[in-house]
Protein backbone atom coordinates (compact mmCIF):
# COMPACT_ATOMS: atom_id res chain seq x y z
CA UNK A 1 0.00 0.00 0.00
CA UNK A 2 1.17 3.50 -0.70
CA UNK A 3 2.07 5.89 2.10
CA UNK A 4 -0.92 8.08 1.34
CA UNK A 5 -3.33 5.19 1.90
CA UNK A 6 -1.73 4.46 5.25
CA UNK A 7 -2.05 8.09 6.27
CA UNK A 8 -5.69 8.26 5.22
CA UNK A 9 -6.56 5.07 7.12
CA UNK A 10 -4.62 6.27 10.18
CA UNK A 11 -6.49 9.57 10.32
CA UNK A 12 -9.77 7.75 9.76
CA UNK A 13 -9.19 5.57 12.83
CA UNK A 14 -7.83 8.49 14.86
CA UNK A 15 -10.97 10.48 14.04
CA UNK A 16 -13.23 7.54 15.00
CA UNK A 17 -11.41 7.19 18.32
CA UNK A 18 -11.52 10.88 19.20
CA UNK A 19 -15.11 11.52 18.11
CA UNK A 20 -16.53 8.45 19.82
CA UNK A 21 -14.56 9.28 22.99
CA UNK A 22 -16.01 12.79 22.87
CA UNK A 23 -19.49 11.29 22.45
CA UNK A 24 -18.93 9.06 25.50
CA UNK A 25 -18.18 12.12 27.59
CA UNK A 26 -20.77 14.56 26.23
CA UNK A 27 -23.77 12.31 25.62
CA UNK A 28 -26.52 12.60 28.22
CA UNK A 29 -27.82 9.10 27.53
CA UNK A 30 -25.84 6.47 29.47
CA UNK A 31 -26.70 3.69 27.01
CA UNK A 32 -25.41 5.69 24.05
CA UNK A 33 -22.25 6.51 25.99
CA UNK A 34 -21.67 2.81 26.66
CA UNK A 35 -22.23 1.81 23.03
CA UNK A 36 -20.04 4.65 21.82
CA UNK A 37 -17.25 3.27 23.99
CA UNK A 38 -17.19 0.29 21.58
CA UNK A 39 -15.90 2.50 18.76
CA UNK A 40 -13.32 4.11 21.07
CA UNK A 41 -11.93 0.71 22.02
CA UNK A 42 -11.84 -0.47 18.42
CA UNK A 43 -10.17 2.75 17.29
CA UNK A 44 -7.51 2.33 19.98
CA UNK A 45 -6.99 -1.29 18.87
CA UNK A 46 -6.54 -0.07 15.29
CA UNK A 47 -3.94 2.45 16.46
CA UNK A 48 -2.05 -0.40 18.14
CA UNK A 49 -2.06 -2.24 14.82
CA UNK A 50 -0.44 0.82 13.24
CA UNK A 51 2.36 0.52 15.83
CA UNK A 52 2.73 -3.14 14.67
CA UNK A 53 1.65 -4.39 18.08
CA UNK A 54 -1.06 -6.75 16.85
CA UNK A 55 -0.97 -8.90 19.97
CA UNK A 56 -1.70 -5.86 22.14
CA UNK A 57 -4.44 -4.83 19.70
CA UNK A 58 -6.22 -8.18 19.95
CA UNK A 59 -5.76 -8.21 23.73
CA UNK A 60 -7.33 -4.75 23.82
CA UNK A 61 -10.38 -6.08 21.98
CA UNK A 62 -10.64 -9.20 24.18
CA UNK A 63 -10.22 -7.39 27.50
CA UNK A 64 -11.99 -4.10 26.87
CA UNK A 65 -14.73 -5.00 24.39
CA UNK A 66 -15.30 -8.59 25.51
CA UNK A 67 -14.92 -7.95 29.23
CA UNK A 68 -15.27 -4.40 30.43
CA UNK A 69 -17.72 -3.03 27.84
CA UNK A 70 -20.07 -6.01 28.25
CA UNK A 71 -19.89 -5.55 32.02
CA UNK A 72 -20.75 -1.85 31.70
CA UNK A 73 -23.65 -2.59 29.34
CA UNK A 74 -24.97 -5.25 31.72
CA UNK A 75 -24.73 -2.85 34.63
CA UNK A 76 -26.53 -0.12 32.73
CA UNK A 77 -29.28 -2.40 31.43
CA UNK A 78 -30.04 -3.95 34.80
CA UNK A 79 -30.40 -0.59 36.46
CA UNK A 80 -34.15 -0.27 35.90
CA UNK A 81 -34.67 3.41 36.55
CA UNK A 82 -31.79 4.52 34.36
CA UNK A 83 -34.05 5.73 31.55
CA UNK A 84 -36.67 7.31 33.80
CA UNK A 85 -34.61 9.41 36.16
CA UNK A 86 -32.49 12.21 34.77
CA UNK A 87 -28.88 11.67 35.72
CA UNK A 88 -27.30 14.81 37.09
CA UNK A 89 -25.26 16.11 34.21
CA UNK A 90 -25.31 19.89 34.62
CA UNK A 91 -22.32 21.99 33.79
CA UNK A 92 -20.99 23.45 37.02
CA UNK A 93 -17.72 25.09 38.04
CA UNK A 94 -16.90 26.22 34.51
CA UNK A 95 -13.95 28.48 35.37
CA UNK A 96 -11.98 26.09 37.64
CA UNK A 97 -12.70 23.22 35.27
CA UNK A 98 -11.36 25.06 32.24
CA UNK A 99 -8.33 26.22 34.22
CA UNK A 100 -7.59 22.63 35.28
CA UNK A 101 -8.07 21.36 31.73
CA UNK A 102 -5.79 24.04 30.28
CA UNK A 103 -3.14 23.32 32.91
CA UNK A 104 -3.15 19.57 32.26
CA UNK A 105 -3.14 19.89 28.48
CA UNK A 106 -0.43 22.56 28.69
CA UNK A 107 1.75 20.40 30.90
CA UNK A 108 1.30 17.39 28.63
CA UNK A 109 2.09 19.34 25.46
CA UNK A 110 5.05 21.02 27.16
CA UNK A 111 6.61 17.69 28.14
CA UNK A 112 5.77 16.29 24.73
CA UNK A 113 7.54 19.09 22.83
CA UNK A 114 10.51 19.67 25.13
CA UNK A 115 11.44 16.06 25.85
CA UNK A 116 13.36 13.92 23.41
CA UNK A 117 11.84 12.47 20.32
CA UNK A 118 10.96 8.77 19.94
CA UNK A 119 13.68 6.48 21.19
CA UNK A 120 14.21 3.55 18.82
CA UNK A 121 15.13 0.26 20.44
CA UNK A 122 18.76 -0.81 20.07
CA UNK A 123 17.87 -4.36 19.09
CA UNK A 124 15.52 -4.87 16.19
CA UNK A 125 12.59 -7.20 16.60
CA UNK A 126 13.12 -10.61 15.08
CA UNK A 127 10.57 -13.30 14.50
CA UNK A 128 7.04 -13.24 15.84
CA UNK A 129 5.99 -10.88 18.61
CA UNK A 130 3.77 -13.48 20.27
CA UNK A 131 6.67 -15.86 20.73
CA UNK A 132 8.78 -13.11 22.28
CA UNK A 133 5.95 -12.10 24.66
CA UNK A 134 5.47 -15.74 25.64
CA UNK A 135 9.15 -16.25 26.43
CA UNK A 136 9.41 -13.02 28.44
CA UNK A 137 6.25 -13.73 30.48
CA UNK A 138 7.44 -17.22 31.33
CA UNK A 139 11.03 -16.29 32.13
CA UNK A 140 11.88 -12.75 33.19
CA UNK A 141 8.41 -11.63 34.27
CA UNK A 142 7.15 -14.92 35.69
CA UNK A 143 6.77 -13.57 39.24
CA UNK A 144 4.54 -10.56 38.35
CA UNK A 145 2.57 -12.87 36.01
CA UNK A 146 1.90 -15.40 38.76
CA UNK A 147 1.10 -12.66 41.27
CA UNK A 148 -1.47 -11.18 38.89
CA UNK A 149 -3.08 -14.60 38.46
CA UNK A 150 -3.31 -15.13 42.23
CA UNK A 151 -4.85 -11.67 42.63
CA UNK A 152 -7.43 -12.48 39.94
CA UNK A 153 -8.21 -15.83 41.57
CA UNK A 154 -8.78 -14.09 44.91
CA UNK A 155 -11.07 -11.57 43.20
CA UNK A 156 -12.99 -14.43 41.55
CA UNK A 157 -13.51 -16.24 44.86
CA UNK A 158 -14.54 -12.98 46.54
CA UNK A 159 -17.06 -12.20 43.80
CA UNK A 160 -18.51 -15.73 44.02
CA UNK A 161 -18.84 -15.34 47.81
CA UNK A 162 -20.54 -11.93 47.55
CA UNK A 163 -22.96 -13.12 44.86
CA UNK A 164 -24.21 -16.15 46.81
CA UNK A 165 -27.86 -16.01 47.78
CA UNK A 166 -27.63 -18.02 51.00
CA UNK A 167 -25.14 -16.34 53.25
CA UNK A 168 -24.47 -18.09 56.56
CA UNK A 169 -25.83 -15.10 58.55
CA UNK A 170 -29.05 -14.73 56.55
CA UNK A 171 -30.70 -17.95 57.66
CA UNK A 172 -32.89 -16.56 60.45
CA UNK A 173 -35.41 -14.68 58.26
Amino acid sequence: MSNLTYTVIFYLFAAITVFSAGFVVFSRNVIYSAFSLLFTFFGAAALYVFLSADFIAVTQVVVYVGGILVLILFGVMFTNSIMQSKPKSDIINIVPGILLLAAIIGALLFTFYTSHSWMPSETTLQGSIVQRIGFETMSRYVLPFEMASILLLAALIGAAYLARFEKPGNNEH
Partner: protein
Amino acid sequence: MPFLMGNTLNVWSQAIASFQPMGLPLGLVILAAIPLVFIALYSLTYGVYGERKISAFMQDRLGPMEVGKWGILQTLADILKLIQKEDIVPTNADKFLFVIGPGVLFVGSFLAYAVLPFSPAFIGANLNVGLFYAIGIVALEVVGILAAGWGSNNKWSLYGAVRSVAQIVSYEIPAAIALLCGAMMAGTLDMQKITMLQSGSLGFAHFYLFQSPIAWLPFLIYFIASLAEVNRAPFDIPEAESELVAGYFTEYSGMKFAVIFLAEYGSMFMVSAIISIVFLGGWNSPLPNIGSFALNDLTSGPAWGAFWLIMKGFFFIFVQMWLRWTLPRLRVDQLMYLCWKVLTPFAFVSFVLTAIWEIYVP
Protein backbone atom coordinates in the same frame (compact mmCIF):
# COMPACT_ATOMS: atom_id res chain seq x y z
CA MET B 1 -2.25 -23.57 -15.08
CA PRO B 2 0.40 -22.13 -12.76
CA PHE B 3 -2.18 -19.81 -11.18
CA LEU B 4 -4.23 -22.74 -9.94
CA MET B 5 -1.32 -24.99 -9.11
CA GLY B 6 1.25 -22.59 -7.63
CA ASN B 7 3.00 -23.87 -4.55
CA THR B 8 3.92 -20.56 -2.91
CA LEU B 9 1.86 -19.68 0.12
CA ASN B 10 -0.96 -17.14 -0.21
CA VAL B 11 -0.39 -16.48 -3.94
CA TRP B 12 -4.04 -15.80 -4.66
CA SER B 13 -4.62 -13.38 -1.81
CA GLN B 14 -1.37 -11.55 -2.51
CA ALA B 15 -2.23 -11.26 -6.19
CA ILE B 16 -5.63 -9.82 -5.29
CA ALA B 17 -4.21 -7.48 -2.63
CA SER B 18 -1.65 -6.04 -5.05
CA PHE B 19 -4.39 -5.05 -7.51
CA GLN B 20 -4.31 -1.26 -7.16
CA PRO B 21 -5.77 0.66 -10.08
CA MET B 22 -4.67 4.34 -9.88
CA GLY B 23 -3.04 3.75 -6.49
CA LEU B 24 -6.35 2.95 -4.82
CA PRO B 25 -6.24 -0.21 -2.67
CA LEU B 26 -9.21 -1.71 -4.50
CA GLY B 27 -7.73 -5.21 -4.23
CA LEU B 28 -8.11 -5.16 -0.45
CA VAL B 29 -11.80 -4.40 -0.81
CA ILE B 30 -12.20 -7.32 -3.23
CA LEU B 31 -10.27 -9.53 -0.81
CA ALA B 32 -12.71 -8.68 1.96
CA ALA B 33 -15.69 -9.16 -0.35
CA ILE B 34 -14.83 -12.77 -1.25
CA PRO B 35 -15.77 -14.28 2.18
CA LEU B 36 -18.86 -12.07 2.14
CA VAL B 37 -20.02 -13.56 -1.15
CA PHE B 38 -19.16 -17.00 0.20
CA ILE B 39 -21.31 -16.47 3.32
CA ALA B 40 -24.23 -15.21 1.25
CA LEU B 41 -24.04 -18.12 -1.22
CA TYR B 42 -23.59 -20.81 1.39
CA SER B 43 -26.35 -19.59 3.70
CA LEU B 44 -28.70 -19.32 0.75
CA THR B 45 -28.05 -22.83 -0.50
CA TYR B 46 -26.74 -25.05 2.26
CA GLY B 47 -27.72 -22.91 5.23
CA VAL B 48 -31.42 -22.23 4.74
CA TYR B 49 -32.44 -24.81 2.13
CA GLY B 50 -30.18 -27.51 3.58
CA GLU B 51 -31.39 -26.94 7.12
CA ARG B 52 -35.03 -27.13 6.06
CA LYS B 53 -34.45 -30.30 4.05
CA ILE B 54 -32.35 -31.94 6.79
CA SER B 55 -34.91 -31.09 9.47
CA ALA B 56 -37.64 -32.45 7.21
CA PHE B 57 -35.70 -35.67 6.74
CA MET B 58 -35.17 -36.01 10.50
CA GLN B 59 -38.87 -35.51 11.19
CA ASP B 60 -40.06 -37.72 8.32
CA ARG B 61 -41.48 -34.83 6.29
CA LEU B 62 -40.76 -33.58 2.78
CA GLY B 63 -39.78 -29.97 3.49
CA PRO B 64 -40.10 -27.28 0.79
CA MET B 65 -41.31 -28.95 -2.43
CA GLU B 66 -43.31 -26.28 -4.30
CA VAL B 67 -40.83 -23.84 -5.86
CA GLY B 68 -38.68 -25.55 -8.47
CA LYS B 69 -37.69 -29.19 -8.55
CA TRP B 70 -37.53 -30.51 -4.93
CA GLY B 71 -38.18 -26.94 -3.79
CA ILE B 72 -34.67 -25.95 -4.79
CA LEU B 73 -35.64 -22.34 -5.58
CA GLN B 74 -37.54 -21.84 -2.32
CA THR B 75 -34.77 -19.76 -0.72
CA LEU B 76 -34.62 -17.41 -3.72
CA ALA B 77 -38.35 -16.87 -3.41
CA ASP B 78 -37.94 -16.19 0.31
CA ILE B 79 -35.20 -13.64 -0.36
CA LEU B 80 -37.38 -11.86 -2.93
CA LYS B 81 -40.16 -11.73 -0.37
CA LEU B 82 -37.87 -10.42 2.37
CA ILE B 83 -36.52 -7.65 0.14
CA GLN B 84 -40.03 -6.41 -0.64
CA LYS B 85 -41.13 -6.34 3.00
CA GLU B 86 -41.82 -3.06 4.72
CA ASP B 87 -39.00 -1.97 7.01
CA ILE B 88 -40.79 -1.86 10.37
CA VAL B 89 -39.26 -0.07 13.35
CA PRO B 90 -41.43 -0.27 16.49
CA THR B 91 -42.61 3.14 17.76
CA ASN B 92 -41.13 2.77 21.21
CA ALA B 93 -37.90 1.16 20.05
CA ASP B 94 -34.61 2.94 20.35
CA LYS B 95 -34.30 3.78 16.63
CA PHE B 96 -30.54 4.04 16.45
CA LEU B 97 -29.64 0.89 18.39
CA PHE B 98 -32.46 -1.06 16.71
CA VAL B 99 -31.00 -0.24 13.30
CA ILE B 100 -27.30 -0.75 14.02
CA GLY B 101 -27.77 -3.91 16.13
CA PRO B 102 -28.00 -6.44 13.25
CA GLY B 103 -25.18 -4.65 11.45
CA VAL B 104 -22.79 -4.87 14.41
CA LEU B 105 -23.83 -8.50 14.90
CA PHE B 106 -23.07 -9.40 11.28
CA VAL B 107 -19.75 -7.52 11.28
CA GLY B 108 -18.79 -9.42 14.43
CA SER B 109 -19.40 -12.78 12.82
CA PHE B 110 -17.78 -11.70 9.55
CA LEU B 111 -14.54 -10.22 11.00
CA ALA B 112 -13.13 -13.63 11.97
CA TYR B 113 -13.17 -14.67 8.28
CA ALA B 114 -10.14 -12.41 7.82
CA VAL B 115 -7.87 -15.00 9.42
CA LEU B 116 -9.44 -18.22 8.08
CA PRO B 117 -7.03 -19.87 5.63
CA PHE B 118 -9.45 -21.00 2.92
CA SER B 119 -6.70 -22.63 0.91
CA PRO B 120 -2.88 -22.67 0.89
CA ALA B 121 -3.13 -19.83 -1.60
CA PHE B 122 -5.83 -17.75 0.06
CA ILE B 123 -6.13 -16.10 3.45
CA GLY B 124 -7.56 -12.66 4.15
CA ALA B 125 -4.87 -11.52 6.56
CA ASN B 126 -1.99 -13.77 7.57
CA LEU B 127 -1.69 -12.52 11.16
CA ASN B 128 0.72 -14.16 13.56
CA VAL B 129 -1.99 -13.90 16.23
CA GLY B 130 -4.67 -15.35 13.94
CA LEU B 131 -6.24 -17.86 16.33
CA PHE B 132 -6.28 -15.38 19.23
CA TYR B 133 -7.94 -12.81 16.96
CA ALA B 134 -10.57 -15.32 15.85
CA ILE B 135 -11.47 -16.09 19.48
CA GLY B 136 -11.44 -12.48 20.59
CA ILE B 137 -13.34 -10.77 17.81
CA VAL B 138 -16.53 -12.64 18.79
CA ALA B 139 -16.83 -9.96 21.50
CA LEU B 140 -18.26 -7.62 18.87
CA GLU B 141 -21.11 -10.05 18.27
CA VAL B 142 -22.01 -9.81 21.96
CA VAL B 143 -22.32 -6.03 21.72
CA GLY B 144 -24.47 -6.38 18.59
CA ILE B 145 -26.83 -8.78 20.38
CA LEU B 146 -27.12 -6.40 23.34
CA ALA B 147 -27.81 -3.47 21.00
CA ALA B 148 -30.54 -5.44 19.20
CA GLY B 149 -32.10 -6.72 22.42
CA TRP B 150 -32.08 -3.41 24.25
CA GLY B 151 -33.03 -1.35 21.19
CA SER B 152 -36.19 -3.40 20.59
CA ASN B 153 -37.62 -2.17 23.91
CA ASN B 154 -39.30 -5.51 24.46
CA LYS B 155 -39.02 -7.74 27.50
CA TRP B 156 -38.56 -10.91 25.44
CA SER B 157 -35.85 -9.30 23.38
CA LEU B 158 -33.99 -8.02 26.42
CA TYR B 159 -34.20 -11.38 28.18
CA GLY B 160 -33.03 -13.14 25.04
CA ALA B 161 -30.11 -10.76 24.67
CA VAL B 162 -29.09 -11.09 28.32
CA ARG B 163 -29.29 -14.89 28.16
CA SER B 164 -27.34 -14.97 24.94
CA VAL B 165 -24.59 -12.72 26.27
CA ALA B 166 -24.29 -14.61 29.56
CA GLN B 167 -24.02 -17.83 27.56
CA ILE B 168 -21.45 -16.56 25.06
CA VAL B 169 -19.28 -14.97 27.75
CA SER B 170 -19.34 -18.16 29.86
CA TYR B 171 -18.67 -20.61 27.05
CA GLU B 172 -15.80 -18.52 25.71
CA ILE B 173 -13.69 -19.86 28.59
CA PRO B 174 -13.81 -23.63 27.85
CA ALA B 175 -13.70 -22.85 24.12
CA ALA B 176 -10.57 -20.74 24.44
CA ILE B 177 -8.80 -23.26 26.70
CA ALA B 178 -9.66 -26.10 24.31
CA LEU B 179 -8.27 -24.16 21.34
CA LEU B 180 -5.19 -23.35 23.42
CA CYS B 181 -4.50 -27.11 23.53
CA GLY B 182 -4.42 -27.11 19.73
CA ALA B 183 -2.22 -24.01 19.70
CA MET B 184 0.10 -25.72 22.18
CA MET B 185 0.45 -28.75 19.90
CA ALA B 186 1.32 -26.44 17.02
CA GLY B 187 3.44 -23.98 18.99
CA THR B 188 2.03 -21.05 17.04
CA LEU B 189 -1.12 -18.95 16.74
CA ASP B 190 -0.69 -18.41 13.01
CA MET B 191 -3.64 -20.17 11.32
CA GLN B 192 -1.73 -20.84 8.09
CA LYS B 193 1.19 -22.37 10.05
CA ILE B 194 -1.12 -24.49 12.22
CA THR B 195 -2.58 -25.93 9.02
CA MET B 196 0.81 -26.48 7.37
CA LEU B 197 2.12 -28.37 10.41
CA GLN B 198 -0.66 -30.93 9.89
CA SER B 199 0.18 -31.77 6.29
CA GLY B 200 1.99 -34.90 5.23
CA SER B 201 1.80 -37.88 2.93
CA LEU B 202 -0.25 -39.94 5.40
CA GLY B 203 -3.22 -37.60 5.09
CA PHE B 204 -5.54 -37.70 8.07
CA ALA B 205 -2.94 -39.37 10.33
CA HIS B 206 -1.12 -36.03 10.52
CA PHE B 207 -4.15 -34.16 11.86
CA TYR B 208 -3.85 -33.09 15.48
CA LEU B 209 -6.95 -35.04 16.39
CA PHE B 210 -5.07 -38.27 15.53
CA GLN B 211 -1.68 -37.10 16.76
CA SER B 212 -2.31 -37.53 20.46
CA PRO B 213 -4.94 -39.51 22.38
CA ILE B 214 -5.71 -36.41 24.49
CA ALA B 215 -6.65 -34.21 21.55
CA TRP B 216 -10.13 -35.80 21.46
CA LEU B 217 -11.01 -34.11 24.74
CA PRO B 218 -10.35 -30.48 23.69
CA PHE B 219 -11.92 -31.30 20.31
CA LEU B 220 -15.19 -32.38 21.92
CA ILE B 221 -15.10 -29.54 24.46
CA TYR B 222 -14.60 -26.96 21.72
CA PHE B 223 -17.36 -28.48 19.62
CA ILE B 224 -19.87 -28.35 22.51
CA ALA B 225 -18.79 -24.85 23.55
CA SER B 226 -18.97 -23.60 19.96
CA LEU B 227 -22.61 -24.76 19.75
CA ALA B 228 -23.33 -22.49 22.71
CA GLU B 229 -21.36 -19.62 21.22
CA VAL B 230 -23.43 -19.59 18.05
CA ASN B 231 -26.70 -20.11 20.00
CA ARG B 232 -27.51 -23.41 18.36
CA ALA B 233 -29.55 -26.18 19.94
CA PRO B 234 -29.32 -27.67 22.53
CA PHE B 235 -28.06 -24.28 23.74
CA ASP B 236 -30.64 -22.10 21.97
CA ILE B 237 -32.22 -20.70 25.13
CA PRO B 238 -31.66 -17.10 23.89
CA GLU B 239 -34.28 -17.69 21.18
CA ALA B 240 -36.31 -20.38 22.97
CA GLU B 241 -39.59 -20.21 21.00
CA SER B 242 -41.65 -21.70 23.80
CA GLU B 243 -40.56 -19.08 26.34
CA LEU B 244 -39.30 -15.94 24.59
CA VAL B 245 -41.12 -15.87 21.19
CA ALA B 246 -37.86 -15.45 19.27
CA GLY B 247 -35.43 -13.98 21.78
CA TYR B 248 -33.40 -10.94 20.87
CA PHE B 249 -34.78 -10.72 17.32
CA THR B 250 -38.48 -10.86 18.25
CA GLU B 251 -39.15 -7.39 16.84
CA TYR B 252 -37.14 -7.74 13.65
CA SER B 253 -38.64 -8.32 10.23
CA GLY B 254 -37.70 -8.00 6.59
CA MET B 255 -34.08 -7.51 5.65
CA LYS B 256 -32.93 -6.80 9.22
CA PHE B 257 -34.18 -10.27 10.18
CA ALA B 258 -32.34 -11.68 7.16
CA VAL B 259 -29.12 -9.98 8.27
CA ILE B 260 -29.43 -11.54 11.74
CA PHE B 261 -29.90 -14.94 10.13
CA LEU B 262 -26.93 -14.34 7.85
CA ALA B 263 -24.85 -13.54 10.94
CA GLU B 264 -25.94 -16.79 12.56
CA TYR B 265 -25.00 -18.84 9.51
CA GLY B 266 -21.77 -16.84 9.19
CA SER B 267 -20.68 -17.71 12.73
CA MET B 268 -21.79 -21.34 12.27
CA PHE B 269 -19.32 -21.72 9.42
CA MET B 270 -16.71 -19.72 11.32
CA VAL B 271 -16.65 -22.06 14.34
CA SER B 272 -16.80 -25.12 12.06
CA ALA B 273 -13.82 -23.82 10.07
CA ILE B 274 -11.86 -23.04 13.25
CA ILE B 275 -12.40 -26.54 14.64
CA SER B 276 -11.41 -28.04 11.26
CA ILE B 277 -8.27 -25.92 11.09
CA VAL B 278 -7.07 -26.54 14.64
CA PHE B 279 -7.90 -30.23 14.97
CA LEU B 280 -8.63 -31.60 11.50
CA GLY B 281 -5.94 -30.13 9.29
CA GLY B 282 -7.83 -27.28 7.61
CA TRP B 283 -7.18 -27.36 3.87
CA ASN B 284 -5.08 -30.54 4.02
CA SER B 285 -6.39 -33.54 2.16
CA PRO B 286 -7.44 -36.36 4.52
CA LEU B 287 -6.58 -39.01 1.92
CA PRO B 288 -3.25 -40.83 2.41
CA ASN B 289 -0.72 -41.87 -0.20
CA ILE B 290 -1.23 -45.58 -0.80
CA GLY B 291 2.09 -47.07 -1.81
CA SER B 292 3.10 -45.65 -5.16
CA PHE B 293 -0.39 -44.28 -5.78
CA ALA B 294 0.04 -40.69 -4.54
CA LEU B 295 -3.57 -40.03 -3.61
CA ASN B 296 -2.61 -37.31 -1.12
CA ASP B 297 -0.49 -35.40 -3.63
CA LEU B 298 -3.21 -35.68 -6.26
CA THR B 299 -5.81 -34.16 -3.96
CA SER B 300 -3.63 -31.32 -2.63
CA GLY B 301 -3.20 -27.86 -4.09
CA PRO B 302 -4.83 -24.43 -3.87
CA ALA B 303 -8.18 -25.36 -5.41
CA TRP B 304 -8.35 -28.72 -3.60
CA GLY B 305 -7.45 -26.93 -0.36
CA ALA B 306 -10.47 -24.65 -0.63
CA PHE B 307 -12.62 -27.72 -1.40
CA TRP B 308 -11.39 -29.64 1.67
CA LEU B 309 -11.76 -26.74 4.11
CA ILE B 310 -15.28 -25.93 2.93
CA MET B 311 -16.27 -29.61 3.00
CA LYS B 312 -14.94 -30.04 6.56
CA GLY B 313 -16.80 -26.89 7.59
CA PHE B 314 -20.00 -28.18 5.96
CA PHE B 315 -19.63 -31.50 7.74
CA PHE B 316 -19.59 -29.77 11.14
CA ILE B 317 -22.53 -27.60 10.11
CA PHE B 318 -24.39 -30.78 9.24
CA VAL B 319 -23.63 -32.15 12.72
CA GLN B 320 -24.89 -28.86 14.22
CA MET B 321 -28.16 -29.18 12.29
CA TRP B 322 -28.46 -32.85 13.17
CA LEU B 323 -28.08 -32.05 16.88
CA ARG B 324 -30.58 -29.21 16.60
CA TRP B 325 -33.34 -31.52 15.40
CA THR B 326 -32.41 -34.32 17.79
CA LEU B 327 -31.65 -32.92 21.22
CA PRO B 328 -34.05 -31.09 23.56
CA ARG B 329 -33.21 -27.60 24.81
CA LEU B 330 -31.29 -27.19 28.09
CA ARG B 331 -32.61 -25.15 31.01
CA VAL B 332 -30.69 -22.02 32.05
CA ASP B 333 -29.28 -23.61 35.20
CA GLN B 334 -28.31 -26.79 33.33
CA LEU B 335 -26.54 -24.63 30.78
CA MET B 336 -24.44 -22.86 33.40
CA TYR B 337 -23.84 -26.14 35.24
CA LEU B 338 -22.51 -27.72 32.07
CA CYS B 339 -20.22 -24.79 31.36
CA TRP B 340 -18.70 -24.13 34.77
CA LYS B 341 -18.77 -27.53 36.45
CA VAL B 342 -18.23 -29.90 33.53
CA LEU B 343 -16.61 -28.28 30.51
CA THR B 344 -14.25 -25.85 32.27
CA PRO B 345 -12.66 -28.44 34.63
CA PHE B 346 -12.29 -30.91 31.77
CA ALA B 347 -10.77 -28.17 29.63
CA PHE B 348 -8.19 -27.53 32.36
CA VAL B 349 -7.47 -31.26 32.62
CA SER B 350 -6.98 -31.55 28.87
CA PHE B 351 -4.76 -28.44 28.97
CA VAL B 352 -2.43 -29.97 31.57
CA LEU B 353 -2.43 -33.39 29.87
CA THR B 354 -1.64 -31.85 26.48
CA ALA B 355 1.25 -29.90 28.02
CA ILE B 356 2.64 -33.11 29.60
CA TRP B 357 2.17 -35.02 26.34
CA GLU B 358 3.89 -32.32 24.32
CA ILE B 359 6.88 -32.16 26.68
CA TYR B 360 7.46 -35.85 27.46
CA VAL B 361 6.17 -37.72 24.42
CA PRO B 362 8.31 -37.09 21.34
